[in-house]
């Protein structure tokens, strides 16, 4: 039994519009989720390196709790678990204004924030202590040393793993369909419902994800190369 491919389903009818809508929704939840994740990650990643035990423990607790529970559970948590805690008026308003969208943004942001935090912590901790000592011996204050030497190096170091996390976040946004967010994967299924053409619809979705992620990966590789510090070990290995 052979399957007859019919790619025209992707541009006939409403399919094209749905794919575009899905792509935009995926971009929206990914972008908002990323901003939240980067902010939480930077905060907690930094907190985990400070000399105050209580702050370190708080940040570590957040990271371990949120990264070790499946994202799917977090989706349900933010959608079904949080809303009953809100006052009636806020709840009704939220339900009328895309509750599932915001639940998905929070699920993605908080989950990936925990993972970003580790990336950022690793970046800061990978800089040898002597680097800081050398900076201080040139007459810089601690704050200046962090701002002018340590952080600029750390940010460069974490570009590859942070890119990795970003791409993961984009692909993980497809889990949002479980709480009814009409993102890209959702729309490919919609096309399948209307046309019964599963392969074409999924292939289109796959190509869009691939294109989006490859674009970001290439962009980040260029940035990495551009900002590389001449003479540092391992620099310039990006394509």
């Amino acid at each position, binding site marked *: *039994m052979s399957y007859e491919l019919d790619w025209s389903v992707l541009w006939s009818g409403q399919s094209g519009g749905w794919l575009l809508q899905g792509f935009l929704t995926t971009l929206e939840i990914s972008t908002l989720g990323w901003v939240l994740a980067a902010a939480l990650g930077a905060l907690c990643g930094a907190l985990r390196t400070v000399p105050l035990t209580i702050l370190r423990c708080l940040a570590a607790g957040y990271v371990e709790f949120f990264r070790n529970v499946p994202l799917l559970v977090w989706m349900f948590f933010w959608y079904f678990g949080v809303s009953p805690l809100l006052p009636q008026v806020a709840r*009704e308003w939220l339900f009328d204004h895309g509750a599932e969208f915001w639940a998905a943004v929070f699920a993605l942001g908080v989950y990936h924030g925990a993972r970003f935090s580790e990336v950022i912590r690793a970046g800061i901790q990978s800089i040898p202590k002597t680097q800081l000592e050398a900076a201080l011996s040139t007459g810089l204050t601690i704050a200046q040393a962090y701002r002018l030497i340590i952080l600029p190096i750390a940010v460069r170091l974490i570009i590859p793993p942070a890119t990795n996390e970003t791409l993961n976040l984009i692909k993980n946004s497809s889990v949002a369909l479980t709480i009814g967010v009409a993102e890209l994967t959702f729309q490919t299924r919609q096309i399948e419902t209307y046309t019964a053409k599963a392969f074409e619809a999924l292939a289109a979705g796959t190509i869009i994800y691939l294109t989006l992620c490859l674009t970001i990966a290439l962009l980040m590789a260029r940035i990495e190369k551009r900002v590389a510090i001449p003479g540092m070990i391992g620099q310039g290995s990006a394509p």
Partner: protein
Amino acid sequence: MNRLLIVLIFALFNGLSDAGAETTLEKLDKNGTLVIGTRTGSPPFGYVNKKNEWVGFSIDLVEKAILPAVSKKLNKNIILEKKESAPATRIPLLQSNAVDLIAETMTDTQARREQVDFSLTFFVTGAQFLVKKGTPIKGIESIAGKRVAAQQGSTNARIIRERVPSAKLVEFPDQPAAFQALIQGQVQAYANDGIQLAGLKARAPKPDAWAVVGDFFSYEPYGMAMRKNESDFRHVVNVGLMDAIASGLYFEIYNKWFGPKAEIPYPLTTESKRFLQMQVVPK
């Protein structure tokens, strides 16, 4: 999602490449098993019951009506094997040869008939709404502007989108999530086939708190799907169903799952009974 991708990849490498391979009947004869795709969470058609057994009306029909017909045709004892299918995976599962027959709650539609073939209609229902008792929603005419849940990939969602574009439709991949959203108020009504809603209501912690409302706003004839252009196999499946309807076996099975004493009582209307009987052609 993962399952869907596996099916897709499997299908691309298998289904697409082996054009002109064996027919379904040849495959059954060789393997000695009939592999069906069915549901695990759609009572009473296909679900895992409290004793952890995978059972249901659709599964019973295959086991008691179709399997004997297939065994008779091939003159050997054929064993039943069950795999899980869902709206998004069922057609790829068939086309990749992973399953031979979809026996769950699949509505026979013209668009789907371009991809797969269907057996006789073995159950008739239509879309309605599940709401909290006492809410003003009375049917499709009163959902404008309301938040309505539906099953992803279902015909119901499509009809609502086309007929009441102002309704705020939220589509969930499975029943539990949609029902949870209804309980918590994320949505004010849940659209699905009447029988599925009756099942959901019957199993809810407080069945009396819920009501299934509205006239059928769609016609949902359930059929069993199989690979296209396999008229020999399709005929055997239909003979199994026709014999069961003619002999009364179908109605026994129906009573077991939908009779007055069943978990989800859904009496067969005279109309539906007559319709089922009229599908039986003479021997």
